[in-house]
């Protein structure tokens, strides 16, 4: 029992509620929400250390014993994601302070960011499938509001699609959960894993697992990504960065959990399917990333490519591949936030959103230009930035397992990522300066600092990958050996 592991979910909820009472006091709201995020992140780091010495931490809510009550389970994988979430949110909040504007700040913006974080952290930590559904909903309801906060016309248009597709996928999720409960009589993930391995993964169970795969693909934008570019390109930049960094990752986390812990007996069917979906996602994402001229669309399609790449690791299904995926997941959360922040800043400065309408920005904003160059290198996976290690590990594992098609697609997609972002860099920063020095809008420091923090983070994570290697190894080890997780949750099964 460790009450601490519930705090990354409960503290944001509590703070979110308190912020509702503090509605007129914007300054206090800002400070309180920053403190809340820092606290969650710090606690996450502390727990990560704890897990290395004491093994997986669990908490049974209300002292109801494991298969009957709701459990929270913190292993290295979840804690790594909680820490990264807190860090990315902190940076997005800093950016929001400078850009979001008073009107939105007094419309409970910070409260809903806290609720979003609560849902995300809860999804990472829960050990119960129905509770996962609930945490997903907490996150989604907050995200519905953040998508349309401000109420511009295109925001409302995209949010209708976004809400419709998510309500549909939540419904399928619920149906899948009902099927699972009907066949196995439990929803505790560890207990499900035990029962599935006892009765064997029958065709019926495999079908249910594919239903779950569809749900999480819809949520994470794996193959079923069609809602993503639209709804990620309309909200305010700080929100878009938060979405691009966090929301799809929760779906990815759920797939990793479900298909390593519970449905790991028929990899020939499920993991092959994941591989095919990842391959198609990589192809379509690459085409999308170079097809559009709208910067925000390009950024959104880069999210799609990353989802495909991370799922290649799960499709290959070996410890090294999962390690690579986890590295890449952490890297991607940081760098996608950076990409969305930079793109949003460029659009805010020029008032244009197409890359052929911008030119020669590097004369006016050199720092911004080099930051875009850094994000390009980092996303393409060029050392010393953080994308490199993940790509190498996933690639190596794919070679080992003989998945050459996935390998080829994964690395060709990196070239497309590189090309799509270099196109932004060359079109927008090189060439003739369209803004003269006199009428350039000044680039405030507070707009740049969040991006600089994230750029430093991707550099540090790339050079100092060794420092998190222990945790990533442990996370991948636990994912590949589900009995560790099961023993932690059900010690006397």
């Amino acid at each position, binding site marked *: *029992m460790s*009450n601490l592991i*519930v705090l990354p979910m*409960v503290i944001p*909820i*509590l703070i979110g*509620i*308190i912020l*509702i*009472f503090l509605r007129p006091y914007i300054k206090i709201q800002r400070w309180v929400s920053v403190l809340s995020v820092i606290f969650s992140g710090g606690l996450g780091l502390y727990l990560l250390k704890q897990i290395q010495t004491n093994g997986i931490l669990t*908490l*049974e*809510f*209300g*002292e109801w014993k494991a298969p009957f009550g709701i459990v929270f389970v913190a292993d290295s994988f979840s804690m790594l994601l909680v820490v990264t979430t807190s860090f990315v949110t902190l940076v997005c909040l800093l950016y929001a302070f400078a850009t979001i504007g008073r009107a939105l700040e007094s419309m409970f913006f910070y409260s809903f960011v806290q609720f979003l974080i609560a849902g995300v952290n809860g999804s990472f930590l829960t050990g119960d499938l129905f509770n996962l559904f609930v945490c997903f909903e907490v996150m989604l309801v907050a995200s519905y509001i953040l998508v349309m906060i401000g109420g511009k016309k295109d925001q409302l248009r995209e949010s209708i699609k976004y809400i419709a597709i998510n309500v549909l996928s939540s419904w399928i999720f619920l149906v899948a959960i009902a099927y699972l409960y009907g066949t196995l009589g439990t929803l505790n993930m560890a207990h499900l894993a035990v029962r599935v391995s006892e009765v064997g993964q029958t065709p019926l169970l495999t079908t249910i697992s594919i239903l779950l795969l569809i749900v999480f693909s819809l949520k994470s934008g794996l193959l079923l990504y069609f809602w993503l570019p639209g709804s990620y390109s309309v909200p305010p930049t700080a929100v878009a960065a938060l979405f691009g960094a966090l929301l799809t990752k929760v779906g990815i986390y759920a797939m990793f959990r479900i298909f390593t812990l519970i449905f790991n007996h028929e990899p020939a069917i499920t993991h092959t399917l994941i591989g095919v979906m990842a391959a198609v996602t990589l192809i379509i994402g690459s085409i999308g990333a170079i097809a559009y001229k709208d910067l925000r669309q390009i950024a959104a399609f880069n999210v799609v490519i990353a989802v495909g790449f991370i799922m290649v690791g799960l499709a290959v299904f070996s410890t090294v591949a999962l390690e690579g995926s986890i590295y890449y997941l952490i890297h991607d959360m940081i760098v996608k936030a950076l990409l969305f922040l930079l793109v949003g800043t460029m659009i805010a400065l020029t008032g244009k959103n197409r890359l052929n309408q911008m030119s020669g920005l590097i004369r006016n904003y050199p720092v911004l230009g080099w930051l875009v160059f850094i994000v390009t290198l980092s996303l393409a996976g060029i050392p010393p930035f953080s994308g490199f290690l993940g790509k190498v590990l996933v690639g190596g594992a794919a070679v080992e397992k003989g998945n050459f098609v996935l390998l080829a697609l994964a690395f060709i997609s990196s070239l497309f990522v590189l090309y799509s972002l270099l196109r932004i860099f060359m079109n927008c920063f090189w060439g003739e300066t369209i803004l003269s020095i006199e009428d350039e809008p000044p680039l405030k420091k507070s707009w740049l600092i969040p991006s600089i923090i994230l750029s430093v983070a991707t550099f540090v994570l790339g050079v100092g990958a060794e420092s998190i290697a222990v945790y990533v190894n442990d996370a991948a080890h636990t994912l590949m050996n589900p009995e560790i997780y099961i023993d932690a949750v059900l010690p006397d099964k």
Partner: protein
Amino acid sequence: MKETNDVILHMVTKVVVFIILTLAIYLFIAGHNQPGGGFISGLVLSSAFVLLYLSFDVETVNSGLPLNFVVVAAVGVFLSVTTGFLAIFNGKSFLTHTFTSKTFPLIGKTEMGTVTLFEAGVSLAVVGVVVTIILGISEDV
């Protein structure tokens, strides 16, 4: 448009609202051991408020009932979460609830549990959310 005369509606509402409120409280207390509980009583409570809003108009009700329902919902959730926290300071798991029995004059022996506070929070949250949604919809029309 001619002013409609809803004397009957007003009279009936004034009586029925009290019946609904009583039912809500009954459901709330019954929920401890029988079907009922905070969520349902919250829904019934909010139906009483909605009936008031329907038969009188929003301004009249607001002048008699000066509540910001967003804040009501927030107070409710706050209450529920903090009762969950009490257990942590007690060294138990999050959301563990406790109860004692006490003998009162007139009522006799009564169980008192912290779960009642939790349910009260749920109730307030439901009232706050439902009324906020319905008022929000009515404003747009």
